């Protein structure tokens, strides 16, 4: 039951970020972007695809962390506890997705360049961070940085 709750929590956070992608698209729709040779519709479709990939990879990384922490790591000694390095390593999955997004989605030439970057980072990193912050297995519940202050169950 506890695992189901955490799985649903991770799914909830991931779905939340899927909705966020639509908000980002709406934001770009209402704030014109100066693009090069690419049409705005094509660019938005490309952004949407890569934003979903970032969110999906983050969700996958969150589940991977949960699975590893719950069933992969056995805490029989103090040395086995924590595993923050593993949590950080899994961050590289969304980071990789962000890098690919940056490569494959044409960057805005002006105006919204900053927002574009921010959205990539949010889609990729924040969803992994929040999903693991709130829904890590209890034996590793404070491993995500700052979890001690935000998780109270």
């Amino acid at each position, binding site marked *: 039951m506890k695992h189901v709750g955490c799985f649903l929590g991770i799914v909830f956070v991931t779905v939340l970020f899927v909705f966020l992608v639509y908000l980002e698209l709406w934001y770009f729709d209402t704030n014109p972007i100066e693009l090069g040779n690419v049409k705005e519709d094509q660019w938005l479709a490309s952004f949407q695809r890569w934003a979903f990939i970032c969110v999906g990879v983050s969700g996958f990384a969150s589940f991977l962390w949960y699975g590893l922490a719950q069933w992969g790591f056995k805490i*029989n*000694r*103090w040395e086995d*506890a924590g595993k923050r390095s593993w949590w950080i390593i899994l961050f590289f999955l969304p980071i990789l997705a962000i890098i690919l997004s940056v490569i494959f989605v044409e960057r805005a030439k002006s105006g919204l360049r900053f927002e574009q970057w921010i959205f990539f980072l949010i889609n990729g990193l924040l969803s992994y961070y929040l999903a693991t912050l709130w829904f890590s297995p*209890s*034996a590793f519940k*404070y491993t995500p940085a700052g979890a*001690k202050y935000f998780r109270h169950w």
Partner: protein
Amino acid sequence: MGYYAIGIGGTGAKCLESLIHLAAAGMMPDGDLHLLFVDPDLANGSRARAGETLANYVKCEDQLKLGKTHLLKTKIIPADPILWTPFDTTNPSLKQFFHYESFRDSPAGKLFDVLYSKAEKESTLEEGFRGHPSIGSAVMAKTVNLKANPTWSQLRAKIAADDEGAKVFLAGSIFGGTGASGFPTIAQIVKDELDVKLGGALLLPYFKFMDDGDEDKLKAKSDEFLMNTQTALKHYHLWGKTGVYDAVYLFGDESRTDVENALGGSEQKNAPHFIELYAALAAVDFFRFGGDFGPDGSVQYFMTARQDNNCLKWTDLPDGNNGDTVRPRIGQMARFAFAYLSVYHPALQKIANRSKDAYRAPWFVDFFERRNLSINQALLGTVEKYCNDFLLWLANIQGNCSDMETIELIEYSAYAERKADGSLALKSPENFSNDLSHLIRDQAEAESIVLDELWERMCNSRRKGRDAQDIGKFLRALYENCGE
């Protein structure tokens, strides 16, 4: 209701040592337990070890606010001082003690000569009565005074003030010196002066000395144990010496364990033995039920037996429930001590040295950090000492038996090892096994737990033990998570 247990001699002290551990595991009925050791041998190693265990228990029980739980449930109140000796500061010989020179030519002196050999008269008694109850009985009868002696008068006052009716339990061996002489003598004096329910564990031979050489010395000799026992039992029977008791429990073991033959003092430090666990269970049984039956006033004698003469299992332990009470209780305490020593105490030390690592132990954040509770090294150290005492005692209960017997209670190799001299010692915590699930043999599936699962339970336990406080809250959660 107050319970009073008096350990007479080295064996009696070892019985109380087992009783302390049973109290720690929550096996005693509700009420305070008062303890007193009786031994002329001030430096007796077995008694000293029991005294250390008692001191650690009392410190833990006093300082930990554990709330309502089985762990350290019983308040143990040691007598002040905890050890009563019939001698003052001097270590007299028997003839000095009775001022033999002043009456040697009288008929009483002649009788004295008949009753005691030259060696018995002249040996000093600082290391006990050396297996000679004839010496001990005379000394005990002369010195145990419930009114004049401060230790005894204090005990007497406490018992007299107990409105609900106190129960007094004596434990000692029948085949040695101190126990054999004190068991009937002290019982008679207590019964004559106080209205109490009186129970006793009388230990028949269950060990023998490896080397009984040096025949010249006046000391206990295991060749004489059976004969001493036979004579003593016959004496008790003929003179109705156990008649003062409401309940008497007798124990012995045919397959006697080898122990070093020490004259006395610190060298007489015999490892705990399962017979002493039986005696402690007898005390628990007496405190719980004893004295409530036998309306005709007759003394109750109890009998128990093992299913297999050469094998001891949990189901053989008399707890009135086919071992199903004693196994879970001792098992839970053992898992608690094991987990505390191998994982939780070292973790607390690491966090004390490097507080930014606290996130690695969510239970630490929940029980300590969020409650602004600092790591009390002294208190945690005392808990560590008690856990050491408990696990070593349990390892000996399992491992200290004759080659003819098999004991199937625990797997002590998970945390203890045999040294070159044959004694058992705890491994260092980092060498404890990772497998906690097989520590207790024949346990129910629900009692089995692995360290990893325990860690997870601890991380979900911040609401456990609402009536416990401070570090007690954490230890209570650890203890309860080690149960079913």
